Structures are given as structure tokens and as C-alpha cells.
């Protein structure tokens, strides 16, 4: 899922400074699961902003709505009625959601209420870790299902560096060494011989470095 973190109350307050009617929009998908931008988190942020604005003696008419997914126009259309009544919209979705809403309402300022962090997994209650960089050329098969591109601080493709301490990364002692994980995993699935192969330098062309990417699936296109 996409993992995000809430912006501070002060930052939120500054974002909507000057606006008198604001709509907070939650997203019912990834950011609900990562406890950052679901219906409940939007409610808490609303309480905080109402208090802050009242203390500043700046009246604010604040409404809230949470839609199933902010990254799909099909769901954003449900916002049309509420958005028409406000001066600005704050998206509590990921950066994708906020941009999709902004495209849908060209005459409304749309601000991001969250800081989008990464694509990750839930390790335990309220702890998420990054697992995928979205490099566009998945190499998981070579490494027993553990991605060194994302999880090795140096993105090494041919074995660990000399800096790992025991089983952990030298960059962050709380972070497991990706190459230790790869070794353990390959051993477990009896594919250690994969480590004999030298992995050539990664082709970064499908990655982000040439700007925003696009996927078109012709077989599913309409018309």
C-alpha cells in the first residue's frame, strides 16, 4: 500500500490560511489502512483545525467527506456537491489523490494534508516499512523475493557491502541487511546457486528518472 504521514497541525493551519470555507477529503483506501488519512484521521484533524482557527479568531466553515478512492475519477465525482460550496479543498489522500482531485476541480485550490512516504507493508500495529521503489523493472526473482534496490541502502546487486553489522545495515542499525535477508531466503528455497551469477548493472530507463511514467494497456482500452 501507499504509506503516508499526517502534516502537523501548524502546517495544516498555514495551508488553509485565508480560506473561510474548506473541505477536508479523506481517502478510504491506502491512507485509511495506514491510519493517516481515513475518515477518522480527517475527523481528528478537523477538530484540531477548528480549535486553532477559533483561537486565532478566524472563522472557518469546515466540512468533511471521505471517499472510497481519491485516485479514481469515478469516486471523486461524489465530491462535486461539497466542493462547489467551499473555497479550498484539503486532500488527506496520497499525492496521487490530491493531484487527481485538483485535476477534477480546476477552479479550486487543492492542498495536500499528508506527506506521502512510500510503498510499503505493515510490519506490526502502526509500523510500516518500505518495500518497493517502483523502479519499473522488477528484479525480485533474482533475489529470492527480497528487493535490494529498495531495501539495501547502497542498492547493491551483487552481494553485501562490508559495513553490515551482524544482520543489520550500517546505515541504520534498526534496519535489517537486505543481503542477509536475501541469503537466508535463497538458502530456504534452495536457490543459493543464484548468487553465483553476476547481475549486470541495472537498467534504470524504466524508472522515474526521465519524468512521470505512463502505462497503457491496449487490451483493456475502450474505443
Amino acid at each position: 500500500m501507499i504509506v503516508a504521514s499526517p502534516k502537523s497541525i501548524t502546517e495544516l493551519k498555514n495551508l488553509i490560511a485565508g480560506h473561510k470555507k474548506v473541505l477536508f477529503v479523506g481517502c478510504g483506501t491506502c491512507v485509511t489502512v495506514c491510519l493517516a488519512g481515513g475518515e477518522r484521521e480527517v475527523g481528528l484533524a478537523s477538530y484540531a483545525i477548528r480549535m486553532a482557527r477559533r483561537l486565532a479568531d478566524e472563522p472557518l466553515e469546515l466540512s468533511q467527506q471521505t471517499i472510497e478512492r481519491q485516485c479514481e475519477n469515478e469516486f471523486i465525482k461524489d465530491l462535486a456537491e461539497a466542493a462547489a460550496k467551499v473555497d479550498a479543498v484539503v486532500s488527506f489522500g496520497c499525492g496521487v489523490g490530491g493531484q487527481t482531485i485538483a485535476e477534477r476541480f480546476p477552479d479550486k485550490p487543492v492542498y495536500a494534508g499528508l506527506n506521502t512516504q512510500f510503498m510499503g507493508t505493515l510490519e506490526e500495529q502502526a509500523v510500516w516499512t518500505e518495500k518497493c521503489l517502483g523502479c519499473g523493472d522488477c528484479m525480485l526473482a533474482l533475489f529470492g523475493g527480497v528487493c535490494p534496490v529498495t531495501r539495501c541502502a547502497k542498492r547493491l546487486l551483487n552481494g553485501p557491502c562490508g559495513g553490515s553489522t551482524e544482520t543489520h545495515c550500517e546505515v541504520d542499525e534498526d534496519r535489517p541487511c537486505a543481503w542477509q535477508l536475501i541469503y537466508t531466503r535463497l538458502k530456504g528455497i534452495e536457490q543459493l546457486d543464484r548468487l553465483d551469477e553476476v547481475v549486470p548493472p541495472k537498467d534504470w530507463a524504466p524508472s522515474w528518472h526521465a519524468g512521470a511514467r505512463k502505462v497503457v494497456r491496449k487490451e483493456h482500452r475502450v474505443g
Partner: protein
Amino acid sequence: MTPSAPPVAVPMTAPVTTPPVAPSTLWEPEIIAFCCNYCAYAAADLAGSKRMQYPVNVRIIHAPCTGKIEMEHILDAFLKGIDGILVAGCLEGGCHFLEGNLRARKRTDRIREMLAEIGVGDERLKMVNLSAAMAPTFVESVQQMVDTVKALGPSPLKESEPREESQHLESEG
């Protein structure tokens, strides 16, 4: 005929008038105490049975467990102008539901951070842990809370907007 009684001497005291009272001295804090059924609520009951006196400023809300108290409940009360909130749960390790009080502690800590950032002040929210037998501790906690809030003065959110305001929720999620 009995001679008429001599006029009664009028006492030479100053006329009784009510001195003007400053508005601040009229203010009494409004405090909510969220009390867990298994400890603080019973402690408050025991305090009553023992005729222990504590300030009348506190309004007790009976909760099945402090873990059931949502962050929204506390924030809503502050938004509506409450001056202080006391969350009273079981002693650590003594929760009837194992860890409701520990969760409540984390939530109150988070709300205290929020209140400080907003400018309401984190001292207006406090959590205490006690057992059902600790009536004196309950009374003392209430008294301390009242003293703290009296020193702070009325909530800055009080009376600046109608009380009826509440969150407007529309969910499609």
C-alpha cells in the same frame, strides 16, 4: 395607655451592600472526568460513601474502560469549551481488559501534544491511574485538576462560538 416605646436605636453600621465582584472570581472551571467502571468510577462512589468532599466542578462520565474513550470524545469536549479533562483508569497492569488503560495513556499523550500545538495547553488534560479502593487518590486528583485549571483560567475556546457546533460528517467511504 402604655407610653409609646422609645424609638429603637439604629445600629451605627455601614449599610449592607454587595461589593462589586470581578467576573474572574465568578468563573468556576468545568471539568469532565472520564472514569473507568472498574476503578475510578468505583473510587468516586466510595468517596461519596465515605462522605469525602471534592469540588463540584467535576462532571463524571462513566466509561466501560478508559480504552473505550476515543480521542474524538476528548477533542469534542475541548472544542465545546470544557476547561479541563481528567481521564481516570486502572493501575497499570490492572486493566479489566488487559491493556485498555495503556492505550488510553498513549491517546491522552497524543492529545496533549495536539493541545499544546493548537495553543489550548496540555495541562488541561491529565490521565491518572488508580484502583477502586483509592477514593482519597480520586479526590486528590480531582482537587489537583481543579487547582491546575483555576490557575490556567477559562479555556480559550470557551464561549467564543455556540455550544451546538459539532462535527459535520458525511462519509462515502
